[in-house]
């Protein structure tokens, strides 16, 4: 399997093209099976992955634009591996969650297949231009999904989503080109290969400007405060499957970008901007959590809550130590699963009542006990209760960041409080109390399709909460590699001081 990654990227797209030949009625089974196969391929990837080995694996290389140094360079390490699996898995879940009576079912499903290609692509490419390529391409299907199957303000929401992210990332493109130019200056050859770029040691002032350029692109995607306002609209308007994929995977592209691009390329600038970014993330954590508490729309609430969690992820990344970064990556995965599940759950009552307003509900616990149970588990996972998946990542990120600053660490840990406040009050208002609204009194509990989507997620939430090791170990290895790279590359004293000097591979065993 030398070309497994290529297959992994392009199989969904090809299947999507084929999909136009498949009859409308049988399209859903078709797409489900495709995504299932894709999931299995990615799991096979995991099986074939050697976590002891340092550096990229399953690498494939081919020249695309020789004259300009653009090449088809793909490969994975422990970090991208699990994000790939997350994408394939959540896509499957999302596809299953779509009900058969959706209008234009075929278009929706095939669009999702194309989206899957771009998502997998972003996580496996190691060439800056290709990264940008998939990154931008992923906007198009999402635009269609939000705009065509969304709510009343769907067009506004989709445009905002597209333009905002596009503007950010095109600045990032300029940054990439400048980086390539610097590399050309240094080495005399054109190359956009990240692995090549990693070897480039830049003076601080260059790093600062490039970091800012990349930051704009990534921060808008994450989204970081104050660039977050597109997200509530996008989530508020998107159909359930759209929200699931958006929250579970697309947002992770931004944080992944930080780990893959900003940190190893600009270690000194990273340290230079550490405090401002930390402050932004603290605002994200506390402020957005409070905004979430004020929401009347359950879906908006989940949307804001995921911004708040992304804040913790960013903090973990900028802790710049293995605990923090590994934790943040695990938190990406857990947040993907949990927020995905929460959006699915919101979708469940939306399908039944066609409203997401919290005040419309109340007392659902007695009407839909199983639904209430699963929602409760997910809520607790999102609050970060130990032995659920949510705790591990959150704890590691916070413990990692706490090393950097005592006060900010305490504020950041405030997430366990504010998170509990909005989640529990929302849960209380939705599920507890007497059934006041007569429409709610005869709601049916979960049906088979919803079980099929929610049960696997619930199991994961518990299992990975109790035994996260299989994921943590490979991730940790790769993270250590990145950090030691950063330490070697750093030019300023401060950076050398803050970024720990970690032994990896042979040295570590010695």
């Amino acid at each position, binding site marked *: 399997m030398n070309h497994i990654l290529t297959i992994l990227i392009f199989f969904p797209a090809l299947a999507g093209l084929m999909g136009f030949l498949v009859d409308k009625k049988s399209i859903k089974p078709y797409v489900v099976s495709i995504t299932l196969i894709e999931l299995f391929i990615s799991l096979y990837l995991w099986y074939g992955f050697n976590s002891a080995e340092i550096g990229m694996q399953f690498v494939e290389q081919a*020249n*695309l*634009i*020789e*004259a*300009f140094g*653009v090449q088809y360079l793909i490969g994975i390490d422990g970090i991208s591996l699990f994000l790939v699996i997350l994408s394939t898995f959540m896509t499957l879940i999302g596809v299953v969650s779509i009900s058969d009576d959706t209008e234009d079912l075929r*278009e929706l499903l095939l669009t999702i297949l194309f989206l899957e290609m771009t998502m997998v692509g972003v996580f496996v490419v190691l060439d800056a*231009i290709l990264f*940008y*390529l998939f990154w*931008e*391409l992923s*906007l*198009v299907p999402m*635009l*269609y999904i939000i*705009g*065509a199957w969304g709510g009343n303000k*769907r*067009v506004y929401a*989709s*445009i905002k989503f*597209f*333009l905002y992210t*596009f*503007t950010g990332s*095109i*600045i990032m*493109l*300029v940054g990439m*080109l*400048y980086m*390539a*130019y610097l590399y*050309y200056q240094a080495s005399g050859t054109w190359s956009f290969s990240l692995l090549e770029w990693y070897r480039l040691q830049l003076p601080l002032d260059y790093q600062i400007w490039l970091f800012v350029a990349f930051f704009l692109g990534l921060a808008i995607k994450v989204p970081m405060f104050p660039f977050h306002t597109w997200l509530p609209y996008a989530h508020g308007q998107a159909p359930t499957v759209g929200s699931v994929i958006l929250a579970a995977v697309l947002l992770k592209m931004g944080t992944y970008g930080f780990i893959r691009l900003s940190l190893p390329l600009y270690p000194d600038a990273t340290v230079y901007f550490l405090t401002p970014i930390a402050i932004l993330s603290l605002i994200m954590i506390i402020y957005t959590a409070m905004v979430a508490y004020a929401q009347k729309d359950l879906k908006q609430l989940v949307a804001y809550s995921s911004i708040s969690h992304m804040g913790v992820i960013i903090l973990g990344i900028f802790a710049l130590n293995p605990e923090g970064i590994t934790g943040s990556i695990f938190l990406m995965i857990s947040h993907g699963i949990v927020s995905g599940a929460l959006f699915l759950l919101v979708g469940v009552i939306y399908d039944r009542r066609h409203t997401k307003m919290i005040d419309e509900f109340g007392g659902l616990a007695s009407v839909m006990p199983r639904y209430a149970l699963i929602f409760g588990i997910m809520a607790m996972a999102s609050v970060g209760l130990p032995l659920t998946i949510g705790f591990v990542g959150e704890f590691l990120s916070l413990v990692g960041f706490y090393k950097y600053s005592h006060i900010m660490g305490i504020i950041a840990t405030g997430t366990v409080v504010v998170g509990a406040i909005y989640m529990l009050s929302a849960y209380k208002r939705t599920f507890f109390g007497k059934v006041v609204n007569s429409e709610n009194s005869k709601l049916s509990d979960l049906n088979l399709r919803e079980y099929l989507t929610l049960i696997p997620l619930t199991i994961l939430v518990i299992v990975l909460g109790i035994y996260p090791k299989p994921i943590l170990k490979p991730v940790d290895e790769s993270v250590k590699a990145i950090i030691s790279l950063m330490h070697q590359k750093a030019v300023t004293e401060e950076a050398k001081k803050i970024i720990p000097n970690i032994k990896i591979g042979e040295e570590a065993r010695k």
Partner: protein
Amino acid sequence: MIEPVSVSFESLKIATLMPMLLAISGGLLILLIDLLKSHLDKSIYIVLSVMFILMDLGSVLSLELNSRGFFDVIFIDGIAMLSQIVILVASMLFIAFAFASNRFHEYQYPEFFALFLFMTAGFQFMVASDNLITIFVGLETASLSLYTMIVLHNKDKSFEAAIKYFTMGAVAAGFYAFGSMILYGLTGSVELYKIFEVLEARNFEPMILVIVSSLFFIGAFGFKLAVVPFHTWGPDVYEGSSAALAGYISIVPKIASFVVVMRIFEQLIHSGVDWIQGVLYAVVVITMTMANIWALIQNDVKRMLAYSSISHTGFVMSAIMIGTTQSNSGIFLYWIMFAFANLGAFAMLWASRKRGIRYHERYDHPFEKFAGMVKLMPLGAVMMGLFMLTLAGIPPFSVFWGKLYLISSAINANYTGLAIIMALNSAIAVFYYLKLVIFMFLKDPVSSLDGSAYMTNASISLKVVLGISAFFTVVSIFFVNPILEMASYFVAMSGF
């Protein structure tokens, strides 16, 4: 008593003239046939023109590089070669549009095709010479035939468009003549290479005159390329002329003018007269930005495309301003990439041309016309959407690579500010291209008619053209490298 000058035929190197001669004789032949037997079907003319253009192309390819000929007025250097190839290929694709299912009478006139061939010849003269006179003659030949072809569309708007275009063209011609007069006065020559020899020897003194002449050239070619504020004819002409012709106008005349501008300004930019560079910088930025902003507020797809192509022109002008080998080869890369996408877009408009149905009291192609197209005609909508995304510069579609390369060349020449402006402009541009996508995919149809209305005019050949452009835009990533290598080879050959 002057002794007779004897010119040996070999020294003429008539071969260098052959391409244009072929085109012209083709035009004459068509007129002749019409004279002998009128009311023939258009198909014969179409086939004939295609044949002649093919021969033309063949003879161009057979020329050897950096050869002068015909009293040295013809100069075949790399960019001449390259641009002629682009011009001819584009023209051939354009002719295919003539095979429209509906009978549009402009295609019934044999003159149309004759003029078309003359125009092609004119553009070839423009690019294949560094003699101010020859350039002028070529330019006017092409323009005059173009005006006439617009008029042949024979609608009130097309007359208006033609008159506007013509009048401004006349003024521009005046500018060109005046500018070249000053150069001639300064150097006593009309051959660009001699002119610059003299000027460099004199190290561009008296500077004021050099500047004045170059600003008149800016005026003249600013009109041709439609850069702000000489752009005003653009939208009206696009609206007035048939979609097919509009598509042609947006591609071929511009590449020809780019070549000439490159010839004239290349040395001037590096002459150390930084006024020129400054002015060009301003012009480029204004053109890009304002055209984008005006495109945002258009209600008609064709007008929107007009403004968009103006903004694209500004984008490419920046490459001339930068004036490195990378940027100059970037021009060709960009324009080839842009040509296919734009051709496709206009082809879609052309295909959707239908008599009798008016969607809007004024416009032929208001956005509403395409509302909900995906429901009525999925494939067409997908194609149009594809072209729009391409023009917007979404990777991996063709125009993106052009943008990439030009922005990169700006950065490499330390124009980082310009690079950022370019980037932001392409972000603004996304909005109006998306507008059409949104109308097609996210809105519900307004008109009760079925999908066939969008393809009423689509003939086999048109569909072929569409297919070609769509295919090219999608897989362009594989063509970038060869095109780039070819372009930079030719450009380097001609020393730009």
